C-alpha cells in the first residue's frame, strides 16, 4: 500500500474526526487522500497557531482533532501550546512533516529543522519519529497515547518515509 494511504488509514482508524491543516510539499499526497476520501472533516488553516485554537475548541466540543502541518509551524504555535493546551490540559495530536532534516536542499529550512526534535522535548510533547513504512504503526500508538494520557503528542514524518 502506498505511504500516504497508510498514514491516512492510521489517522482514520485511531478515531481522529477533525483534521486541521496547512500544506507542505511533503504532505501533498496525504492531503490529496484526505480531500478525496472526504471521510474526516478537514479544515484549512491560515496559520498554525490558529489551528491550536480551533483544535482546543473542537476538543472542548468532544472531538479528537489533529493538526497537520510542516515543522516550521510548530514555531508559530509555541505560546498557544503552553498558554492554552498545557494550561487547561487540552490534548492535541500534532502531525508534522520534518523539513530541514538530513538531505535538505533549502537552506532556510535547516535552522528550524534542526531545532524541531529538541523543541518538542522542551515543550514536553512526547515525540514519535516516523521514518520508515514499518514505523507508520507508531502513528496509531502516538494517537492512542494522546487520547489515553490526555496529553499532546508530536508525530514527526521524515523524508526517508517516502523513499523507504
Amino acid at each position, binding site marked *: 500500500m502506498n505511504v500516504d494511504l497508510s498514514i491516512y488509514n492510521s489517522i482514520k482508524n485511531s478515531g481522529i474526526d477533525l483534521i486541521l491543516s496547512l500544506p507542505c510539499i511533503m504532505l501533498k499526497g496525504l492531503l490529496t487522500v484526505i480531500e478525496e476520501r472526504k471521510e474526516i472533516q478537514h479544515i484549512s488553516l491560515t496559520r498554525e497557531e490558529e489551528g491550536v*485554537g480551533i483544535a482546543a475548541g473542537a476538543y*472542548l*466540543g468532544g472531538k479528537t482533532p489533529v493538526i497537520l502541518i510542516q515543522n516550521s509551524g510548530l514555531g508559530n504555535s509555541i505560546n498557544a501550546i503552553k498558554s492554552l493546551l498545557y494550561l487547561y490540559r487540552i490534548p492535541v495530536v500534532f502531525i508534522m512533516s520534518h523539513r530541514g532534516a538530513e538531505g535538505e536542499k533549502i537552506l532556510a529550512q535547516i535552522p528550524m529543522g534542526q531545532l524541531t526534535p529538541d523543541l518538542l522535548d522542551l515543550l514536553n510533547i512526547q515525540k514519535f519519529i516516523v521514518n520508515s513504512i514499518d514505523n507508520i504503526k507508531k502513528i496509531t500508538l502516538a494517537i492512542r497515547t494522546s487520547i489515553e494520557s490526555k496529553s499532546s503528542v508530536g508525530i514527526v514524518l521524515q523524508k526517508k518515509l517516502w523513499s523507504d
Partner: protein
Amino acid sequence: MKRFDAIKEIVKALRNELVVCNLGAPSRELYHIDDREKTFYMLGSMGLASSIAFGLAISKPDEKVLCIDGDGALLMNLGSLATIANNKPENLTLVVIDNSSYGSTGNQRTYTSNKTKLEIIAKGAGFESITFIDSEDKIEKILNSLGKGCHFVLIKTQPGNVKVENIPLNPEKLKERFMKSFSIKT
C-alpha cells in the same frame, strides 16, 4: 459606552449559548457581571478566542456559540476571519468589542483608533452578516434578532476597564466545568 457596559448588554441577550471570552479584562469583567458554567474564559493565548469558538461551533452544531473578542486580540489573528467566513458555521456569532486599545496592558492604542476598520476586514474575509453597533441600548435587541448563521458584530466603545477581581477558577477545573455544562465527558 465602555467595554463593561457592552458586556452587561451582551449578557442580557444570552440564553443557552456557549460563550468563549477573550483573555484579560474582558474575561474578568464578564466573570464579575455574570459567571455561567457555559462560559469558557481564556486565560492565555491572546488572539485565539475566535478560533476556539469556531472549533467549538463546528463540533457542536446543535449549540449556539457566541465569542466575545477584542480589537487588539483579533488584529493578532486576522486569518481566523477568513477561516470562519469560508467554513461558515451556522451557529456562530463573533462579537468584537472594539475599544481601540489594548485594555489589559494600559490602554495603549490599537490601529482601530486610526485607519483600521475591522468590520470592513470581516466583509473582505467573506462574512455575509456584519453589524456595527455604537450605542448601548441596541446591543441586546440586535443580538436577539440574529438567527441561525455566521455573524460578525462590532461594538464600538470607549477605552477603559472596570477594576474587578481575577477569576478565581483553576484552568483545568474551568475546562471541566465548561465541558460538563453541555454533557461532554472529561
